[in-house]
């Protein structure tokens, strides 16, 4: 694509959650937010921060039955609650699945009837109208991709999978507060870091033409690889955590350029396993294999990435990335996630029809996907 647009209104500052939320709700004259968040977030101390950031005389309602992958059934349930409580805005707080669920719910709130006709494969993007309710997104340690993108995957009522894709789905406001990541565990932090690194690398390598996105991706990658070890060493440094959140946001802003095969593999394995697998875990495993597959497709960009990872001319990028990931407390093979060969075969078929396949720097098909996954099984 050659249309470059950045992208929505993003607040990014230490401790900005409460005041940004208050100010945005106040200036939007919103009084009845429907808060979407999973149980883990709503039971944590973070929930008090969110709730204490609501303006006076606000009547919030909370919806916390968030599925692993957004579903039409859940979106309709949310739409019913939204109408029942006369809500006037959606607040999605926490992870990408919550934020993506909110995006699907926006369409369900604005349109009666089946969502199948609004999916990308049915040419439904243009049918998504202008009456969508406002959505404010507040990612925690992850979820940036969902918070600034125009996409949302979903499982339709029929059980089929679909993708909503429309610029109107981008949250109206995104609030990024690095202090929300203080207290996150090592595993969660590592996984979010791997996800950010994969977004940056794949967006940079994707074959679409978007120079600003490439710059953003490289900058995010530099921040991530320098600061993830500091956060993992738990030095209590808000600076490093802030840099990791910036890397996550950079990767998310860059992904409008398109992604690649590791994103397609991660989505596909998440779908066929239906086990709520973590995107960061999946990308940590898939990315080295995908880089090996792509190794001759974009030599100049590979040189640039070698430089960011401080690898020598004789080093191999996929090996260097794998070594970097080895220091993280994350699974190294797909079998560690309980995935068997049947999962891989099913995922290969799904991945080959993922939009991310189209922007991978090397043409990639079902057989290639299966070979890549076998190499990291």
């Amino acid at each position: 694509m050659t249309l470059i647009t950045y992208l929505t209104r993003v607040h990014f500052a230490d401790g900005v959650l409460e005041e940004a939320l208050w100010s945005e709700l106040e200036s939007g004259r919103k009084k009845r937010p429907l808060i979407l968040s999973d149980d883990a977030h709503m039971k944590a101390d973070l929930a008090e921060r969110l709730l204490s950031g609501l303006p006076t005389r606000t009547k919030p309602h909370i919806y916390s039955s968030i599925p692993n992958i957004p579903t039409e059934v859940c979106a309709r349930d949310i739409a019913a609650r939204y109408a029942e409580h006369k809500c006037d805005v959606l607040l999605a707080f926490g992870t990408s699945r919550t934020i993506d669920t909110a995006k699907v719910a926006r369409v369900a709130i604005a349109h009666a009837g089946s969502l199948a006709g609004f999916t990308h494969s049915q040419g439904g993007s243009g049918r998504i109208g202008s009456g969508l309710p406002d959505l404010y997104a507040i990612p925690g340690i992850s979820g940036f991709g969902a918070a600034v993108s125009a996409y949302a995957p979903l499982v339709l009522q029929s059980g089929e999978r679909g993708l909503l894709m429309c610029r109107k789905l981008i949250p109206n406001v995104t609030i990024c507060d690095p202090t929300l990541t203080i207290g996150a565990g090592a595993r969660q932090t590592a996984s979010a870091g791997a996800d950010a690194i994969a977004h940056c690398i794949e967006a940079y390598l994707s074959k679409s033409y978007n120079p600003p996105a490439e710059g953003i991706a490289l900058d995010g990658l530099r921040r991530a690889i320098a600061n993830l070890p500091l956060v993992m060493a738990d030095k209590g440094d808000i600076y490093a955590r802030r840099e990791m959140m910036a890397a996550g946001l950079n990767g998310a802003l860059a992904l409008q350029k398109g992604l690649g095969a590791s994103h397609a593999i991660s989505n596909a394995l998440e779908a066929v396993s239906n086990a709520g697998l973590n995107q960061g875990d999946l990308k940590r495993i898939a990315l080295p294999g995908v880089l090996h597959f792509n190794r001759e497709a974009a030599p100049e960009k590979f040189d640039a990435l070698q430089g960011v990872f401080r690898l020598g001319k004789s080093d191999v990028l996929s090996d260097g990335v794998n070594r970097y990931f080895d220091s993280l407390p994350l699974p190294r093979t797909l079998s560690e996630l309980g995935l068997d060969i049947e999962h891989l075969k099913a995922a290969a078929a799904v991945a080959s029809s993922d939009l991310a396949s189209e922007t991978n720097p090397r043409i990639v098909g079902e057989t290639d996907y299966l070979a890549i996954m076998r190499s990291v099984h």
Partner: protein
Amino acid sequence: MSGAISVHHGAFGRAALYELDKPIITHAHREAHLIFYVDGGKAIMQIGDEAVLADSNVAGAVSPWQPHSFDVADAGGPCMCLVLYIKPIWFLENSQSVEHALSFGASKINMTKPISEWVFRLTSLLLEQEGSELFDGFLYEMTRLCYDQSWRGQPHVGFMESARSKYVDFRVRRSIRLMKESFADDVEIEWLAKESGLSRPHFFKLFKKQMGITPNLYLNTLRAEQAIDDLMMTNKTVTDIGYDLGFSSQASFTRFFTSNVGIPPSDYRRVAHIA
């Protein structure tokens, strides 16, 4: 008696031209403040730990939620001052610091020639006693000049200090939520402490330490802000606004409003304009 000559409300906040001859007690609010001396007796302000004498050379800058008080400093008669209340959204949209998105860098602002000229223009606008489409632009530019000056040459606070000051204990957060939900009722500190899982003295101490003001002051702020909002945005009578905010009579509401905002609520409504 203190009074307001004019008040303008706009997208980024409000500006008031006050004539003050009585002190305003220590209070704090979400909005930042810029206070400029215009005429009459000089003003002494306590802004956080710093005393600021506002005259033709120096103005006062108060960050959101920073405790501050006001008094007339000498026998020069009432102090006429231009007071800006800047919404946090201004800072969120203009701050260039990821660490200090919501504060001025210093409490004292030197009255440079450009700032003095903006004071004159804003004061003139307020004296015209009617809404003006120029108001938002004037307020915006004036705040930007003062904000930039306040950070010039300021040392940076350490990252950890910055994070600590922003990572407020969840029990304090809970009490803030409860206050927002019930500030119009007869909220007792004892109840807030209990609901927050703390003893009264511990709650009081922790709240003051983390928020910079006492829970009582916080409650007062919520009531005063809601009162201003109701005065400007609704047709409710002053008496009804007071009742809805939990006051037992118009007199007690007027006393509360005057001591927190500086002038009586009926005067405020009379002189205020929306840009």
